[in-house]
């Protein structure tokens, strides 16, 4: 007797990394629990997509993509810390958008961001 195998999806529907991650679903990233083995947290595929978006770029080596990913991480850390300095002055414990704007205006290296975040 053919037992009607419960064809119910045994696995939870796997969500691929969609373009908009605004929904509350936490996106499972590669496990980074091993210290030292964590070379870059940002997915290289996404960084590569950004690099390829530049029409002048023909090819990019794997090492270049990796360094760009790592640089982007350092950038995020840097700008978050700089923005936090502004929030601290306001005695707030939550970083707001205006803290970021202040940091961009105050720090020369962030000048390239002006007008791009709106």
């Amino acid at each position: 007797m053919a037992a009607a195998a419960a064809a119910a999806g045994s696995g939870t529907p796997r969500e691929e990394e969609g373009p908009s991650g605004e929904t509350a679903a936490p996106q499972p990233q590669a496990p980074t629990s091993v210290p030292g083995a964590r070379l870059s947290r940002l997915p290289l595929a996404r960084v590569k997509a950004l690099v390829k978006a530049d029409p002048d770029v023909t090819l990019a080596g794997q090492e270049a993509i990796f360094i760009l990913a790592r640089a982007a991480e350092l950038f995020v850390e840097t700008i978050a810390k700089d923005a936090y300095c502004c929030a601290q002055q306001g005695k707030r414990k939550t970083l707001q958008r205006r803290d970021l704007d202040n940091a961009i205006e105050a720090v020369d290296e962030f000048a390239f961001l002006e007008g791009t975040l709106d």
Partner: protein
Amino acid sequence: MAERPEDLNLPNAVITRIIKEALPDGVNISKEARSAISRAASVFVLYATSCANNFAMKGKRKTLNASDVLSAMEEMEFQRFVTPLKEALEAYRREQKGKKEASEQKKKDKDKKTDAEEPDKSRDEDNDEEEERLEEEEQNEEEEVDN
């Protein structure tokens, strides 16, 4: 599906984690600020790519390499990133080499089983050839042009 380059955001979860680890405990970040930082990171990558590409073109190369990106960092006045990036690059290269050797080893073991009757002499020659090929591959990746 025409996406503007700025729309290619990096995963929110990762961005949030990086921010939280950079800030002291107990500090929060609003959704707007986090999304702005995420967009800023994308713009950063695009800008860095463009700068790096200029260096590649100066060197008459079509492939962006690691040193192009490092030069771009200096150009963008992010010199403070250069040292940690160099260290990360070293670690990355070691890891890649380890992976390569591991897969080569697997291949050798596989060959050992199939060519169990062949004399060992030819095996040594094969090893040398493989090593040379590896070096060539690495050089190709570098594509460094003497200025």
